[in-house]
């Protein structure tokens, strides 16, 4: 394999290769379509997310599922095109080099257009649209002050002044505003079943809103928990409490019993 | 490597130019550090300046540092001309002015400790900015002292690059102060 030592054989080979190009392209396109359809069906059949119990969870899960639909053809494209070349174009004993193809205007142009369009699409939806949806409905029915401390959560229902620790009680279908603060280091207020997360930063009050849509509690759904999601020291892993979503009247009764 | 004579590598770029490019890239990198410090300062303090910061000392040490840049400039030119005596003289002037600057900062620190200690918002920014800058000034002074001593003994008669590098570093520290001075005292 000396430098530049290439005979005409490789050139004739190039020609045969180029002649076969349309056929190859059609084959690859067909395989790609087939694989993509199969993959999309598989992706659609799998339930990716755990228990979803809030309006916000639907927005987040829809965004995830849409991105899965969009990412699948990209993934299969690279795998099929690369895989096809890896199988068909492997070295077969002769010392010839491949055809000196340095560029292809059509391929590069298509690539540029497709990747740019895909990026912009992803930015607009689910990106911007999802964010707008999350920020819609800014009116809260219930305000709860959350205080994070190493390593526990404390809640204060702002209207009634009820303070609790441990389990977080919420009424179903009411818009809840959390005002989150921390007394020591950074924590993060995360409820997996609700798909909401906001850091508790000392010296600052952060907010996040949620509308619970399903009844449930930590006893039957592990995702119904307030979990600290930002490393805060030794007790970080165990810094979680349950979340219980109940009907409004049941919530009122609980609040009254708790001293509201 | 037995029979053929080894030729030195040819480069299209001279050693002097390679050194200069490297030095400027170093300044570029350091600029990022000081830019980061300035951004930190504005993030924490907004556009406020503490009232008790001494305008007089600020103006005096700024003037001294600027003046030292002029003497450093003269030293570099003398070195390029091969004028050992003048190089040494201007280097010693720069050293003196630099030392006065450091003394001024030290004096100011002593005052500032009671007015706004590091445990306060402004003190945090003030001591950090002047401290990091003073650290650079002191390293600059160490370089200048070495240059002065070597220049005195005629080691730079043939090659003025070390003087040029040391003086450029000194100018760079001055440029930093050009931005730090208004950020700390004026606004």
């Amino acid at each position, binding site marked *: 394999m000396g430098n530049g030592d290439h005979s005409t054989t490789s050139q004739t080979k190039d020609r045969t290769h180029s002649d076969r190009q349309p056929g190859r392209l059609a084959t690859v396109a067909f395989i790609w379509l087939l694989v993509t359809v199969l993959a999309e069906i598989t992706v659609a059949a799998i339930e990716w997310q755990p228990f979803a119990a809030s309006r916000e969870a639907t927005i987040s899960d829809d965004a995830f599922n849409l991105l899965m639909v969009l990412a699948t053809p990209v993934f299969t494209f690279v795998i099929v095109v690369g895989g096809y070349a890896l199988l068909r174009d492997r070295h077969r004993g002769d010392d010839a080099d491949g055809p000196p193809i340095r560029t292809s205007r059509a391929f590069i142009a298509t690539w540029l257009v497709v990747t740019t369009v895909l990026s912009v699409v992803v930015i607009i939806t689910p990106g911007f649209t999802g964010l707008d949806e999350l920020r819609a409905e800014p009116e809260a029915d219930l305000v709860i002050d959350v205080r994070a401390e190493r390593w526990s959560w404390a809640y204060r229902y702002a209207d009634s002044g009820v303070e609790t620790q441990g389990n977080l009680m919420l009424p179903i279908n009411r818009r809840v505003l959390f005002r989150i603060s921390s007394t020591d280091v950074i924590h993060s207020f995360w409820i997996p079943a609700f798909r909401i997360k906001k850091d508790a930063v000392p010296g600052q009050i952060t907010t996040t809103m949620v509308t619970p849509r399903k009844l449930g509690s930590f006893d039957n759904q592990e995702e119904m928990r307030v979990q600290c999601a930002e490393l805060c020291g030794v007790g970080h892993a165990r810094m979680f409490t349950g979340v219980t979503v109940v009907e409004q009247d049941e919530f009122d009764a609980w609040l009254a019993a708790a001293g509201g | 490597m037995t029979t053929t004579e080894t030729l030195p590598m040819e480069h299209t770029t001279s050693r002097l130019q390679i050194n200069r490019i490297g030095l400027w890239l170093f300044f570029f990198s350091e600029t990022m550090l000081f830019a980061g410090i300035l951004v930190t300062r504005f993030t924490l303090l907004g556009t406020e300046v503490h009232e008790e910061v001494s305008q007089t000392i600020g*103006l005096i040490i700024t003037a001294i540092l600027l003046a030292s*840049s002029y003497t450093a400039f003269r030293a570099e030119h003398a070195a390029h001309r091969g004028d050992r005596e003048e190089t040494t003289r201007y280097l010693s002037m720069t050293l003196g002015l630099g030392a006065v600057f450091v003394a001024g900062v030290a004096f100011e620190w002593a005052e500032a400790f009671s007015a706004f200690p590091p445990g306060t918002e402004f003190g945090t920014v003030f001591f950090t900015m002047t401290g990091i800058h003073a650290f650079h000034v002191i390293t600059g002074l160490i370089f200048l002292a070495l240059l002065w001593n070597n220049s005195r003994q005629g080691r730079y008669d043939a090659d003025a690059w070390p003087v040029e590098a040391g003086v450029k570093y000194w100018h*760079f520290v001055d440029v930093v102060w*050009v*931005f730090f001075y208004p950020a700390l005292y*004026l*606004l």
Partner: protein
Amino acid sequence: MTEIAAKAVERSPGVTAIVSLAVLTAVEFVVSSADISGSLAMLTVIALVKAAVILSAFMHLRNVLREEG
């Protein structure tokens, strides 16, 4: 050209630079103590000009692109 004349030629850009730096610093000081609106923008511009003076006159920024000098 005599040596003294050569020194004068060499000195003059340095003198111009240090004088303009002094003037600009004085302007800065006046601007800040006069307490006028827009002083932040003015101080920024002045600082940039001062930096440019040092970079070009004292540090010979252009020489990094040239072979000799």
